[in-house]
Each structure stands twice: as structure tokens, then as C-alpha cells.
């Protein structure tokens, strides 16, 4: 591989600064001329020409001894550098990056030739991971039709269940203002307003001002537990809508509550959830594809473990597991 030579770029000052040319293209030209990738490509062209001239008539280099870097790869290297350092690489830095890449490739090929990839846990693990990606990618390429998603949703709709939601007005009886009487005061007030409508002025006049809202619309139990404390929600869930009820205790004191609407927990219609369904469907397909691919691969193998004697082990190979095998990488404890 001694032919792979990268040459040395001169670290001289910007040639453009000598230029006397005028005109609007100048800044563009300046930028272009400072572009290290351009320097590199030009230099590469020169080297290629020299190389071609010196080795003319040889009929090309043996392909396994050729290291070709595409323009895309070089671009990518430059972008990586920029994202790290927030500036363009100097030609010297760029050259060093390319040489790193070449070194990796050279050593990789030499190592392959020496068989160093055999029995290496890192190599094994990486290749196993690639097999997983491959299996999953096969499904990722497939765009599900609406009908397909709908059919899947019918079977898995319980995964998308929505919690109940409550809308209510409440009257607050403050222990700060009423001390131990807060609960009794609330109970007494209830006898006066039983049968009154939700927005009755009488109701409002009996209670204390509440520090947040008097009306809460369309709240799920977990959101209400955060606001009022968990015990309030347990009680709220048992109230019948359409009349003043209570007293109900919260983390702040006592309340009379008029629930006007309960939207029971329900399974949503497919149309409401289509994007979520698609996400879940894709995850499920990936999991299944992996499972199927692995099961097929696994079936081709006999696994032998040492038994009391080797002879016995051969007679009793370990069967493939019945349980699902998780993918070799991904989230969760390793």
C-alpha cells in the first residue's frame, strides 16, 4: 500500500490576498479557494496524474489494494469536524483525518487477512447487531396501508384506551378560615344548596375563595391528583354527576363538588389515533420481524452443552427457546 501517499499541503498564506481582481465574485472565489476540500481534491488530482504517469501501462492496481474514498465520505468527514469544532478544518487537519481513515482501512484489511476477526467478542457483537438492524430494516421499508393499520388496531385497541375525564365546579371550605369546622360548614352548606343549579349565586356565597380555579374542565384523574392530592380523586370518581355533593377532602381542605360532565374512559376510534397507531404498528412489526428472522436462523443450529458426559450432551441438544428472545441491543438493562 505504499502507493497511497497524500502529499503535504503547504501551510502558506491565502493566495487570494495577493490578488488584485475586483468584482462581486471575489468573495465567493475567496471562499472557494479557502475551502480545504477543494485543496485536497486538486492535490488528489495532481497526485493521481503523477501516479497514472509513473505506473502507465501496468494495467491498474490490484482492486483489493485500492482504497477509494468518495466525495460523499470526504464531505461527511468535513461536516463531522465542523460539528465538533464549529469551524472548517485546516488542510493539515483535513489531511490528518483522511490519513486516520486510511490507516483504519489498511489495518482492517491486514487484520482480515490474518484472520483476527475470528473469536473476537467485539466483532461478534457488532455483526450480531447488524443482523438485527437488517431484519428490522426489511419491515421499515414497508409503508402500511390504512386498511392494514385499521385491522391491526381492531385487535390491539385496548393498548390505546383513554382515561375517564371529569368537568366540575367546586366550593372550597378553608381550614385556614374555619379551622376544625371546615368539614361541618361544608356539610351544612350542602343542605342549603341541595337541588340548586351548578352556577347558583347562593352556592358561591357560602364558600371561601379558592386559590386556583373554581371550575375544572375535562381533566384526567392523574392531572387532578397532581392538583388536589390523590385522596380527592378517589372520592371524585364515586360522585354522581348533576348535583352538589360532598363534602370531599383535598390536600387543601373541604369541598362541595358539582360534577357536570364525566367522559367515561373509552377506546378511541381509529381515526383519532392514526399517527399513534402507526408508530405502535411499526414498533410491533420490527419486533416481529426480528423474532421471525431469529427463530428461522436459530432453527438451523444445534446447541450442545457439556452434560455429565460428552456423549450424553450430543444426544440431548438444547432446543430453541420457547420464550421470545429480545433483540441483542436496544434500551433496557444490558
Amino acid at each position, binding site marked *: 500500500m505504499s502507493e497511497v501517499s497524500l502529499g503535504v499541503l503547504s*501551510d*502558506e*498564506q*491565502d493566495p487570494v490576498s495577493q490578488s488584485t481582481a475586483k468584482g462581486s465574485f471575489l468573495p465567493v472565489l475567496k471562499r472557494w479557494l*479557502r475551502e480545504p476540500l477543494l485543496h485536497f481534491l486538486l492535490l488528489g488530482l495532481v497526485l493521481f496524474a503523477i501516479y497514472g504517469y509513473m505506473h502507465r501501462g501496468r494495467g491498474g492496481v490490484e482492486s483489493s489494494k485500492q482504497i477509494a474514498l468518495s466525495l460523499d465520505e470526504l464531505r461527511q468527514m468535513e461536516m463531522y469536524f465542523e*460539528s*465538533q469544532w*464549529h*469551524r472548517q478544518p*485546516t*488542510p493539515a487537519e483535513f489531511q490528518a483525518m483522511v490519513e486516520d481513515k486510511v490507516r483504519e482501512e489498511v489495518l482492517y484489511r491486514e487484520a482480515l487477512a490474518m484472520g483476527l476477526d475470528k473469536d473476537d*467478542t*467485539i466483532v*461478534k*457483537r457488532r455483526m450480531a447487531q447488524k443482523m438485527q438492524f437488517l431484519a428490522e430494516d426489511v419491515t421499515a421499508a414497508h409503508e402500511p396501508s390504512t386498511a392494514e393499520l385499521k385491522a391491526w388496531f381492531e385487535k390491539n385497541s385496548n393498548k390505546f384506551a*383513554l382515561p375517564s*375525564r371529569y*368537568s366540575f*365546579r367546586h366550593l372550597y371550605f*378553608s*381550614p*385556614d378560615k374555619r379551622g376544625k369546622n371546615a368539614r361541618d360548614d361544608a356539610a351544612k352548606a350542602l343542605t342549603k344548596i341541595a337541588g340548586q343549579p351548578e352556577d347558583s349565586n347562593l352556592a358561591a356565597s357560602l364558600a371561601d*375563595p379558592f*386559590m*386556583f*380555579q*373554581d*371550575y*375544572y*374542565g*375535562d381533566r*384526567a384523574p*392523574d392531572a387532578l*391528583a*397532581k*392538583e*388536589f*392530592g*390523590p385522596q*380527592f380523586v378517589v372520592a371524585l370518581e364515586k360522585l354522581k354527576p348533576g348535583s352538589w355533593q360532598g363534602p370531599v377532602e*383535598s*390536600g*387543601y*381542605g373541604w369541598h362541595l363538588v358539582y360534577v*357536570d*360532565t364525566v*367522559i367515561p374512559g373509552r377506546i*378511541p*376510534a381509529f381515526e*383519532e*389515533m392514526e399517527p399513534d397507531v402507526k408508530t405502535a404498528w411499526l414498533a410491533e412489526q420490527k419486533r416481529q420481524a426480528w423474532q421471525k428472522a431469529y427463530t428461522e436462523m436459530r432453527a438451523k443450529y444445534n446447541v450442545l452443552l457439556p452434560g455429565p458426559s460428552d456423549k450424553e450432551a450430543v444426544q440431548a441438544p438444547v432446543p430453541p427457546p420457547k420464550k421470545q428472545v429480545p433483540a441483542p441491543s436496544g*434500551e*433496557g*438493562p*444490558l
Partner: protein
Amino acid sequence: MRNHFARGRQAARIARAAMRPMRKTKTSLFLLTSAGLILSLAACSKQNSEARAATEKEQAQSTRSPEARPSRNPLKNAYFGDLHLHTGYSMDAFAFGTRTTPEDSYKYAMGETVEYMGKPQKRIAPLDFLAVTDHAEYLGVVRDTIDPNGPFAKSEWYAMMTNPDSAVSASAFRKLIGSTIVNKPLPEFNDPKLLRSSWEKYAAISDKYYKPGKFTTFVGFEWTSAPQFQNLHRCVIFADKGPAMPYTAFDSLDPEDLWRYLEAQRKQGLDVIAVPHNGNASNGLMFSTRDMSGKPITRDYTERRMANEPLAEIIQAKGQTDTSPALSPTDEFANFEMWLYLIGSDKKANSATGSYLRQAYGVGQEQQAKLGVNPFKYGVEAGTDFHSGITSTEPSNFPGSHGNQDSDPRIVITATTSVGGEPPTALSSGGLTGVWAEENTRESIFSAFRRKETFGTSGTRIKVRMFAGWNYPKDMTKQADWVTAAYDDGVPMGGDLAAPSGTAAPTFVVHAVKDPDSGNLDRVQIIKISTKNGKSQEKIYDVVWSGDRKPDPKTGKVPAVGNTVDVKSATYQNTIGSTELIGEWTDPAFDPNAHATYYARVLEIPTPRWSTYWAAKLNVPPNPNVAATVQQRAWTSPVWYAPAKP
């Protein structure tokens, strides 16, 4: 090409110079616009509560729709979250046997059940937002060590990391964290390719769990600089999308270099802040008036510090950074969750000076008199810094916070030392950040960080807000729409009092509401730090309190609220204290020629400390090294006053 760097530096200098006057114009423009906005908001929110009820009713009637996104509240809601949490992606947490991932963290914060140290855990009250901030150094890579088929299978790392003995994992921790302290990365964990793929996966998890209107996530990491175990750590929080790569202590130990990284991110359109924490473990370095090279800080340093760091963390597992009894001898509530050790060390810090926020507020004003800018004009937030992956700040529901260092009750009851030096019981049950924001979105909450309309709590969900103005009418909090008036005629916490009109002193309005699942409130105090002629002093005023207690005529202090805790059973009664405290206070000693920082502190009645709940469960006496009962609390961001230049 040799001039490449020089040219870059010059350009940066020119840009900075150009920015200076521009920034001022921008600020005044911003103030004008906000004032206009607030005025118009005030007009339309007179009948705010009824209008909102109508909106909410309308929303509720569309019965088939999925849960409606709550409408924006121009008068702002309080949201609670954690901006400092480690998972198994952090080298040290993983060494402690923590195997949770950021996915677990977000699920737990939203109220789902997750497994931690082999047991299911669930929060009583879910949180509104969360930033997972794993250590940037080796982020995620150390997880490979326990793979029996992995690259570390034959190394001592595998043996150390899979050993259930907490003493063994502590030695792994020391090796890992030690490499950041001596700034010599372990090459096996510092592979750029591994780090990059791990980072991308990590940042994507944050985006995945963001549910605008319902639950907000932030992409974050912790920059772990601690020269000679003196803590300079910062959590870095991005406004929206995360960066290509985090910035590590191996890149630099100097906060000014971290700021350079943040400034570069902002140039690329990624707004971001850094939040310093644990000044208490910094040996005076955190709020020093000298930079890393020992030179006195300059105006440029100060401006950059404040542009990059609007907030500081006031409490977390390793103690509070408000103040210490040594610095505030007359503050009878100062001795709360003290952590006296350096970071990752069994050595105690030598210096309280330069380590706590309250003192820094005074020092900042002294610097402001010299430099024209205050280097320590910090708003406050709080976090857990738990290395468990779960923000479990509820003392009655506390599973431990540092993996195998403190999740086994036998260890917690008996151990006299831990990785951090002190016994594991010395760790607190953390802290939470509160923000006042229009809605639960990244944009709205991050804007609150920038405005410093924030508060920190010791893990409880006390809602507290403070406003200040020159012309607030008496008894204004008795008006139904007092919040509108408070915004209209003054500034919220995090803001600056404008120049006084006349000789009047400023009036402060405070409003605190208890956590519905914790103790009642004892009192609200305003802590004032004033600076004149280069000298600073603090004074604490009781402003509103529960019951009919009378201030001591000599000291002016309101007597203690009492204590209902039964230590043996770890129970308390909310028969003392208030659910809500609200009131106004006018500074009786206002000097228009002195600088002043004012912030509010809210105290709960005494409740059992987490370690007392554990002792009760095990039917043993509580660990004598720590308090059996504590007064949980909240601190607001300050309001600042600076005299006009003579």
C-alpha cells in the same frame, strides 16, 4: 491559512463589541414590548377566572375528542420538574448499580411505574417537566462493562461493575470520577464513535417523551468539572433540540470554556443555559471573584456569566446552597440539609465563603458597584442530582437515590461513610424546580428560565410567587384579580425594580400555597441582602405566618410553629400551619442609595425526614447523625434593586 485562528478571534472580538450597545437597545425594546403586552393582558383578564371557566366548559363539551390541550394562561401556572437527574448512562450511577435509562426517568416522572434496584416505583404526584442530565464524560459508554460477551468481559471493569458489594462498586466509582478530577480520560471509555452513537440515542429519548401541553422534556447533560474535588459542575439545558455532542470536563475544566461552547451552540440556533450547582462543595470556588487563572473577574466575564447562567440550583441530594449557619448566624432555619464535603471525597470543604448563594448576592452587588454589572444575579431552581434515574422527591415514598450506596435499609441504618464521604443518610430527598409559565411547553418553560420567574423547593410542591412594585395599593391581595394588578404595576420574581418615583419604599406581594400532599405552611419570609459602600448585610423578615403568633418584641421573630411529628411512627398532623399564606410587605429600612436583593423563603411545618420514614418502617430509631424532622421549604428567585448612578 496560518491566520485562520487569529482572524476568528478578531472577528469574535468585533462581534462582541458590536453586540454591547445592541444588547441594551434590545433589552429596552423587549421591556417596552413586554410592558405593552402585560397592559393588554391586564385589560383582557379582568374577568379572567369566569372567562377561563367558560373556555374550559366549551372544551369539555367536545366529548369525543382526545383530552384537550389546556389553554394558555396569560397569568401563568406553576409547573414542577427536575433539571438534574442521572441514569445508568452516567458513569458513577452505573458503578452504583443503577440500571435505569432515560426512558425510565421520563416514564416515572409522568406517573408510570418503573423498576429501580429490583423494585417497582411510582410517584404519588407526577411531574410536569424533566431534564435528564447524565454526566457528559463517558456518557452511556460505561454500560457496556457488564456485558458478559462484551469488550470488557475479561477486564477488571467487568468484575468491579458486576459485584453486588457496594464497597467494590465504590472503588469503580472512584476510578471513574477520579479520571475526571485529574482530567485524564480513560481511553477505553472515551472512544468518540461510541460516545457519539450513545449521545444521539440519549438525546432522541428526550424528544420522544415531549408531549406539548402535558409533559415537557429538555435535552441536557452535566459538565463535570471539579479541580481538586472542588465542585464547579454545571447542568446544561437546551431550549429545544440538542447539540451534535455534549461538552465534557475533558474538553476543559474552565467554566469560561463551557460558556464558549454554549455561545457557539446559540450561534447555530440552539438556545441553551448552564446551571451551576453545589457551591457548598466548591471550597469557595463557585462564587469566587477571581477566574480560573486567579485574575480578578472582569466586566466581560460577568456579562458572559450572566448571559449563560441565569439560574443556580439552590438544593439537591448533596445539600442546599442557600446559606450555612456559619455565614448566617442569626438565621435559625439555616441549618437545613447541610452537606459539608467536597465532591466525591471524604475531605470537608475549608471555606464556606464563596460557596453559598445568599452571600454571593451581596458579593455580586459589591462587584456591581465596581464593574457596573452583577456577576451573581442568579435566579433559583432546584433538582435532585439523584443517581437512580427516578425523581423520587416524596419523603414518604422514597426508595433511596444512589443505587447500591443507599437503597439497602441495612446499609442506610448502619453505614457511617459512603462514596460522598458522609453517611448515606446525609443525602437529602432532593429538590424540585418550580416555574411560572403560560403553558407546559418547552418554549414557555424555557422562557421562564430566562426571565428567572422560577423557584426551588426541597422536593415538596409548594407553589410560591412574589411581585414587587412602588405603588401597590394596600390590601391589593384582597382583590380577585390581584395577579393582573401585580404584573401591571410591578415586576415578578426574577425581575429588576425600576427607579423609585419619589421616596417611597418598595412593596412586595407574596403568595404561597401548600403541596396538597405534604405539610401545612409555617411562614413566608423575605430575605434582604443590601450593599452600601462595599459592605453587605443580610436581614430576614417574617412576612406572613399561620395562626395568631406574635413576633417577639425584642428580635422581631415569629416564634416556632410547633411540631406534630410522631418520630416513632413517622406521622404528622396538619392541625397547625396554613394551607395558604398571602400578604404584602413594605421594606421598613429601604435605602434608595443601597443595592438590594430580595427573595422569599417559605417554610412548611415540621414533617418526618425520609430517613425517619425508613426507620419507622424497620422499627428502629432514626439515624442520630441527621435531623429526624425537617421543615421543607421553597425559595423564590430574587427581585433586584440597584440605585441610579450619581
